[in-house]
C-alpha cells in the first residue's frame, strides 16, 4: 500500500501499528502531509451535526410499529411513537387508570345510591311486621313453664331489648328470609315452650302481617298466667267436692266470716 494511503489509515485509527506511523512521520514530506490531513480532519470532526425533523421521526417510528403489528409478533410494549422519544410522555400511560376510575366513579355512585334507596325503602316496608314478630317471639318466650314468673312490666322491658337486638340484626342482613330463619331457630332451641306458644309462633313466623293477633295473644297469655297463679294459690282447695249451696252449709263450716247464710243475714236485725 502506498505510504500516503497508510497515513489515512493511521489518521482515522484503522491501523494499530503505531511503530509504522512513527517510521512514516520521519519522512519530512509525509510528516507535512500528515499535518495538513490532520488539520482538515479536525475541522470535520468539530462540525456540528443536523438532527432529523420531529415529523420525520414520528413517521418512521409509526411505520416500524405498524410493520411489527403486521408481522404478528406480540409486542412487548405498545407506546406511540411520540412516547418513545420522551420520558415525560412515558408517564402518560400511567394516568390511564386514574382516568378510568374517574369514568367509573359516576356509574358506581349511581348504582350504590340506588341500592341504598331500595334497601331503606325495603326496611321501612318490613319494619312493622318485624317489630310485631319480635314482640311475638318475646311473648312466646315468656310462656316457658320452667321459667320464673315475670311481671308484665319486666316482660315488656325484655321485649324492648329483644326488639332493639332484632332491629340490629335486621339492619345487618336486610333479608326477611334470614329473619324468619333466625326466629325458627330460636323457636327450635327453646325446648320448654308451650304448645300454644309454638303454634302461635309458627303462625307468626308463617304470617307476620297480623298485628291485632299479637295484642289478643298477649291478653290470652295474661289470663293464662292469672289462671296459673290462682291454681297455685288454691291448690289446697278440693275442686272435686260436690257443689253445696251456702244455705246448706253449717255456720261453723267455714271460718270465713263473709260466708253467711242468706237467711241468717235477713233474720239478723243487728246487721241492719
Amino acid at each position, binding site marked *: 500500500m502506498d505510504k500516503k494511503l497508510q497515513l489515512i489509515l493511521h489518521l482515522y485509527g484503522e491501523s494499530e501499528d503505531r511503530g509504522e506511523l512513527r517510521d512514516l512521520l520521519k519522512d519530512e514530506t509525509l510528516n507535512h502531509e500528515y499535518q495538513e490531513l490532520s488539520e*482538515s480532519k479536525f*475541522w470535520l470532526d468539530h462540525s456540528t*451535526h443536523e438532527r432529523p425533523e420531529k415529523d*420525520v*421521526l414520528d413517521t418512521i417510528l409509526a*411505520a*416500524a410499529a405498524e*410493520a411489527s*403489528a403486521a*408481522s404478528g409478533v406480540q409486542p412487548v410494549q405498545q407506546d406511540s411513537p411520540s412516547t418513545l422519544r420522551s420520558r415525560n410522555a412515558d408517564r402518560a400511560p400511567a394516568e390511564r387508570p386514574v382516568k378510568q376510575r374517574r369514568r367509573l366513579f359516576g356509574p358506581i355512585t349511581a348504582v350504590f345510591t340506588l341500592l341504598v334507596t331500595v334497601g331503606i325503602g325495603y326496611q321501612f316496608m318490613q319494619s312493622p311486621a318485624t317489630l310485631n314478630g319480635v314482640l311475638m317471639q318475646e311473648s312466646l318466650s315468656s310462656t316457658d313453664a320452667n321459667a320464673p314468673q315475670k311481671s308484665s312490666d319486666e316482660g315488656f322491658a325484655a321485649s324492648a331489648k329483644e326488639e332493639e337486638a332484632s332491629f340490629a340484626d335486621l339492619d345487618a342482613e336486610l333479608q326477611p328470609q334470614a329473619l324468619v330463619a333466625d326466629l325458627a331457630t330460636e323457636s327450635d332451641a327453646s325446648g320448654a315452650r308451650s304448645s300454644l306458644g309454638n303454634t302461635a309462633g309458627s303462625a307468626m313466623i308463617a304470617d307476620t302481617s297480623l298485628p291485632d293477633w299479637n295484642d289478643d295473644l298477649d291478653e290470652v297469655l295474661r289470663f293464662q298466667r292469672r289462671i296459673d297463679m290462682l291454681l297455685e294459690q288454691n291448690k289446697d282447695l278440693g275442686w272435686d267436692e260436690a257443689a253445696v249451696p251456702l244455705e246448706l252449709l253449717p255456720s261453723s263450716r267455714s271460718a270465713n266470716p263473709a260466708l253467711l247464710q242468706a237467711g241468717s243475714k235477713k233474720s239478723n236485725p243487728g246487721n241492719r
Partner: protein
Amino acid sequence: MHPSDEHLVTAYLERSDQRAFSTLVERHQERILGFLLGMVRDKSTANDLFQETFLRVIKAMHNQRGSYDRQGRWLAWVMRIARNAALDHLRSRKKWQDVSDNGDEESASYWERLPAEDLKADEILHNSEQRDWLTACIDQLSPDQREVLLLRHEADLTFREIAEMTDCSINTALGRMRYALLNLRGMMSDKKKLQTELSGS
C-alpha cells in the same frame, strides 16, 4: 452499558420492541442525516431521504423488501440503503451526469480536474459561519470524494466498509479520502490568505 445494534435489532424483530428500534434511530440519526445532507445539499430533501431510507429499512427488516442478514453491521447496511436513496434522488434530478466516471480518480481527483477557478472572495465572505463555510467546501468536492468523506465522517464507516459499499478497492477509497482532505485543506488556506489580504487592505 449500551446494547449493541444487533441486540436492538433482535429485540425489535423478535419481540416487536419499539423502544429498541427507537434507540437505533436515535443512535444513528445524525450520521445518516449528515451523510444525506452532504450528498443532496438540501436540508428538506435530506429529511425526505432520511424518512425514505428508514421506510426501506423497515420493509427490508421484515423481509418485505430486500433482506437483512444480521451480520453485525446494521449501520453499514442502513447506510447502503441511504446511499441508494440519495443516488436515486440525484439521478432523478440528473445531477449525477455532471461528472463522468472514467476510473482515473486514483491518479487525479475530481478537484484537480475541475476548471482552474478558485472560490470567489465574495462567496467565501458570504459564508461567515465556519460550519456553513465547511459545508460549502465539502460541496465543492467531487461526488466520489464527497461520498467517501461523508461515509467516513458522518456515517462513521470504516474504509473497508466504504470500499464494499461503493464497490471499489480500499486503496481507491483511501485515495479519494486523501484528496478530499487535501482539497479541503487547500480551500482553508485560500480562505486564510483572503482574510489576510482583506485585513491588510
